[in-house]
């Protein structure tokens, strides 16, 4: 069975926050990324001058070498606070910045994201933003780097949207929102969302991806019209789903991960058919067609899979959702042996037991993974060294140690991934498992 191992005796771990290379940025980073992922939204950072630009390496490039897009990085309006603002306050600077941004930058929605400096000097950012509410659609994400990590920032963004933008709407049958896919932190976020949307469309369900929808503001406003909110993570997006239920009465369902490969994808569709009372025959026909094609195509990769990694002992080092999706696919479809899973996104304590269950139950493999929750790259390295594995599905921080210290193959599938470009690549859905094998075999490349 899976175990949660305490890494060190308690007294040595007095400051678990101190870590080497934790795999996320700050809450400002997360809220900023969510804004960039909302097409047509313009972020306005009320922060030091480096807070935006540093996310370019720490978030955008980290998510598969992505550029920050037209409103990101050095294009992002920022109040660039310095000492004199710390002394006299930054509100005037922010007021001027919002004014000029709304004049100059094309956008449908402006999102003021406030960081550490205004929080520490006590700027009343909310009051300044309020002055503009009549003139333009504008949000204030009241955050700071020290209140939490990028995942927290994602929640705070959604929270601001719900509180400041959304109004009750007529519920449209068979319309759902996709929550829990965190832009940039989940490096396959764009592809994941699109695959889910297309999958749902095939069975007659209209999905609102929220992020990367062509009209971002409209996508946000439509959120309350959904019949159901689908959360693709045991914890990310759950607070938003709860709040939407409270405020608009929208029920929600938590799916532990974006489904990878045919088995989990079919199961997900069957669940949805029950939950949304879809026409059974239509869903089953779609499943049959997709499975037939996927498994026929699996024959094309089967030889190399047997050659490169037959029954491989695997280590997975990733965020919760990616870890669950890949562990299940490897174990239940490819015949891999999940030896160790290290969850790196620091999920809240109360969801950890369930995450361990998702990672250890319902696996065909006789080997069940040892599960750890760890954010510290150094400790992750030490943990991995205790295991003999042949494949490491991890971040690119593990790129060299997997090969040099573990004698294993490595593929970057989680944040940060600085060694591959991910535009709309994804391992989600029917085709996703095959895509994973394509990427792994690229690393293997022979011998035959």
């Amino acid at each position, binding site marked *: 069975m899976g175990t949660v191992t305490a890494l060190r005796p308690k007294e040595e771990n007095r*400051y678990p*926050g*101190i*870590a080497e*290379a*934790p*795999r*996320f*940025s*700050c*809450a*400002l980073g997360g809220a900023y990324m969510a804004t960039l992922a909302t097409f047509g939204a313009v972020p306005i*950072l009320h922060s*030091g*001058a*480096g*807070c*935006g*630009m*540093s*996310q370019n*390496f*720490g978030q955008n490039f*980290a998510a598969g070498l992505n550029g*920050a897009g*037209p*409103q*990101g*990085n*050095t*294009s*992002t*309006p*920022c*109040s*660039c606070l*310095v*000492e004199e603002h*710390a002394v006299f306050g930054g509100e005037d*600077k922010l007021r*001027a*910045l919002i004014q*000029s*941004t709304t004049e*100059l*930058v*094309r956008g449908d929605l402006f999102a003021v994201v406030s960081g*550490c*400096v205004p929080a*520490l*000097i006590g700027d009343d950012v909310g009051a300044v933003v309020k002055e503009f509410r009549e003139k333009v659609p504008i949000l204030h994400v009241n955050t*700071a*780097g*020290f*209140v939490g990590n990028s995942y927290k920032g994602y929640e705070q963004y959604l929270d601001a949207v719900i509180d400041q933008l959304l109004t009750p709407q007529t519920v449209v049958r068979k319309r759902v929102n996709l929550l829990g896919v965190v832009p940039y932190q989940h490096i396959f976020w764009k592809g994941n969302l699109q695959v889910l949307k297309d999958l749902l469309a095939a069975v007659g369900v209209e999905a609102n991806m929220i992020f990367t929808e062509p009209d971002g503001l409209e996508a946000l406003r439509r959120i309350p019209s959904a019949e159901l909110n689908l959360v693709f993570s045991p914890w990310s997006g759950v607070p938003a789903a709860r709040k939407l239920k409270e405020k608009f009465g929208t029920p929600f369902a938590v799916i532990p991960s974006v489904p990878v490969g045919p088995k989990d994808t079919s199961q997900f569709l069957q669940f949805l058919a029950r939950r949304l009372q879809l026409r059974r025959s239509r869903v089953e026909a779609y499943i049959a067609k997709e499975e037939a094609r996927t498994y026929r195509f699996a024959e094309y990769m089967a030889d190399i899979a047997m050659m490169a990694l037959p029954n491989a002992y695997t280590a997975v080092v990733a965020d919760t959702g990616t870890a669950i999706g890949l562990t299940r696919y490897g174990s239940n479809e490819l015949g891999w042996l999940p030896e160790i899973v290290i969850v790196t996104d620091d999920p809240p304590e109360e969801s950890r037991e369930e995450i361990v269950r998702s990672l250890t139950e319902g696996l065909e493999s006789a080997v069940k993974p040892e599960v750890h929750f760890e954010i510290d790259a*150094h400790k992750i390295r030490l943990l991995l060294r205790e295991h003999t594995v042949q494949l490491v599905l991890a971040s690119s*921080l593990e*790129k060299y140690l997997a090969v040099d210290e573990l004698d294993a193959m490595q593929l970057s599938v989680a944040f940060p991934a*600085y*060694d591959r470009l991910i535009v709309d690549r994804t391992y989600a859905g029917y085709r996703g498992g095959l895509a994973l094998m394509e990427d792994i075999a690229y690393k293997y490349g022979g011998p035959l």
Partner: protein
Amino acid sequence: MTIDLKANTCPNREQRAGAINAYYGKATDLVREVRAGSLVNQEREFQQSSGCVLNFYLTTRVVTIRDAVMIVHAPVGCSSTSLLYREVYRRIPPSEGRPTDFDLHWLTTNIDEKDVVYGGADKLRHAIKEAQARYNPEAIFILASCTSGIIGEDIEGVVAEVQAEVEATLVPVHCEGIRSRIIQTAYDAFWHGVLKYLVRKPVKKQPDLVNIASMLSYTWQDRQEITRLLNRIGLRPNFIPEFATVEQLRIMGEAAVTAPICPTYTDYLSKGLEQEFGVPYFMYPSPVGIDHTDEWLRTIARFTGKEREVEELIREERATWVPKMDAIRADFARLRPDGKKVEILGSLGQGRLLTQVPYFEEIGVSSPAAIIQDFDNLVLDEVEQIIDQAGDFDVLVNTFQAAELSHITRSYDPDVALTCPFQGSAYKREKGATRIHALRGDARRWSAQAGYKGAIAYGNFLLQSLKNKAFQKTMLAKTPDTYQDWWYEQTDPLHYIKKEA
């Protein structure tokens, strides 16, 4: 100016050298006003994220010091840039001379809400001990942040107290993001810590050792080229700080000379090494372009008694490279049907202004204007020399202000616009655009810019950008602009400057 190593940190560039980062006008006027001290920095009513004293220049550099640990005393976001540290730099193949002992480390103290109220000194203490226990480093750099600054963390106090308990030398670096508008303050703050805590009194001089503070924006190939050239006249480069060992920082006082690649990056270090340890330095030129590489080598040779050897080296190298440069110049001359010179607009650091304008002369292109990240009084004579050679030109001083860059690029409409690789959509142009530089992790030959090889490689690189504009043109046509039309219709890139600030 004397450097006061008893102080916790350096003065800001604003105070030390009258630095500004908002100006648009003629180069001659800029120099005159800065010399007179009559230019005050101005606030912008529209501003874009552009990097701070901590990020991203400093962290990406400090983290490369091989047997040191960097502790960023900040909330978790401030160090996220450093995530790329280990694997990106490790891609440089050892066959290209990359050291194999290459296990880079950094820690964040992850300042949280509790620490903001009660202080994070305990955490910092713990982090220092943890770094010592985990990695057994030679030095631990402790980088301050906006948050540690505003909540008044006593980093010096912690260092003084913990130093006795750890073997590594502790080096605090006061790079609080809010302390200065000028990113270059970061370099001075870093060098201050290095000079104060690491460089040791030389026991004996090493007459063949040349300190070279190398910029991350010059590439691995540049480093190889410089090594090749110096080795040929019996000298050894001491490249600092990137990929150096702590020992290499400690022995800087033993070197024969400190030579620039970027003069204003090295300035504080050069002056400090001279003042404290008698190591001479020079600021100009840098080894970019054939003529300037000649001069750079000659200047080093004067400090090391290699005058005879260097002339032989230059003769041989020129025989190899000048014909190649002639071919590049001929290619550029053929490019415009109207017989005019190809126009290249570059956005660059202050140091690069001194290298790029003459280099453009060398390859036979012209530059309608220069965009400089910031400007101070450290290299005024040198800039005047450039103006004398190339004639007066327009200057826009701004630190990564994308809207202003789009404006000036569109109004000057050059044949090629050189952009920093991270400037959003600035590459979208009707004509050519290419990146201005690569970063150190890029070990490919075509990215070289320094020395003789680099002069040729970069010339060819620029030529390539004029041969197909499909990508830039397509992206321009198919994607919307970020700014409203009126922005381009008015004439002032500094439209949003607050005149009275």
